[in-house]
């Protein structure tokens, strides 16, 4: 019975991943990270992603702060933050977030305040979505590992 549960969870995980790929939320770089995970480094993906979340939230706060400035907004500084955000997002395979960063950066290049505000909203929304989905993914993965370990302790890869 427990083994059956593990299979269902495995199917759930793959279904979610397939969905995220299909929606363009994730790209093949995420798969690359999964390939780097093994017995020696069993939590590699969640470790990297958690670092990414931590950094991203700081960057988003900085961006919001810069844009809400009463005086002239520092578009150059925003551009620097966006470069960072873009880089780390692409490194973990967060395709939609990366693309919004590109559009956002174009708006900062033009000092387009309205465009920047729109882009920031989209970015925050997209980032939230990504974070929720990845948390969901990690939860399923944890459950599966737990269940698989209990039922088939020897078979655990």
């Amino acid at each position, binding site marked *: 019975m427990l083994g059956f549960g593990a299979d269902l969870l495995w199917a759930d995980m793959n279904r979610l991943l397939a969905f995220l790929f299909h929606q363009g939320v994730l790209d093949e*770089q995420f798969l*690359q*990270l999964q*390939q*780097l995970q093994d017995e020696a*480094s069993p939590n*590699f993906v969640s*470790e*990297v992603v958690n*670092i*990414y979340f931590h*950094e991203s939230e700081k960057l988003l706060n900085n961006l919001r702060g810069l844009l809400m400035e009463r005086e002239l907004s520092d578009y150059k500084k925003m551009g*620097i933050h966006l*470069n*960072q955000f*873009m*880089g*780390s997002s*692409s*490194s*973990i*395979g967060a395709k939609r977030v990366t693309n919004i960063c590109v559009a956002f950066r174009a708006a900062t290049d033009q000092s387009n305040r309205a465009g920047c505000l729109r882009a920031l909203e989209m970015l925050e929304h997209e980032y939230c979505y990504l974070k929720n989905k990845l948390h969901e993914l990690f939860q399923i993965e944890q459950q599966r590992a737990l269940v698989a370990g209990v039922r088939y302790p020897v078979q655990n890869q």
Partner: protein
Amino acid sequence: MDSNTIVSWPRMSENIEGFALSPNKSEEVHVLAVDDSLVDRKVIERLLKVLACKVTAVDSGLRALQLLGLLDEQKIPSETNGFAGLKVDLIITDYCMPGMTGYELLKKIKESSTFKETPVVIMSSENVLPRIDRCLEEGAEDFIVKPVKLSDVKRLKDYMTTKEAKVEGQVREGILKRKLLDTSDVSSSSPPSISSSSSTSVIDSPIRRLKMTSTD
């Protein structure tokens, strides 16, 4: 006499193709990775470890120079300066970094007497041809467009042989050439991969290929 006579050479614990990923700790390839992004440092570290390399990851060009003993204040020779023995087989650096860029770091390394022979690879999220050209002209071995994948790092294996293995590779080449000249029945088959691998690795680099075609 066939080419199997090579097996009588010493140091056969190493892979004959000279990539020298032997278990001997002193021959472990050591890569210095430089990137201001923590996420990217974690990824590049893992990629290199998967290929059995020892990795030191730092977050700035300044720290990299410090580690290599190339900061101006370190150039004064002293007994306490322990950097003389630091073994680095490859340096891989991000291009866009606050403070010192990867390009500036590359220049400093190539200007040094201690590390100018060490291969330096540049990584960048932007595929800008003039930038790539500039780096290659300054002596960069290769240029990787981010995000970095396992296939990119695998390609770097060609540059990641330790100095010892490189010297041995050249020695083997020399001995092999003499052997071929000595024996009257030179076999028509090409020499073992030792010599060909080091020459094809340069041509095989897609960046080199790109550079060659762009000058047409």
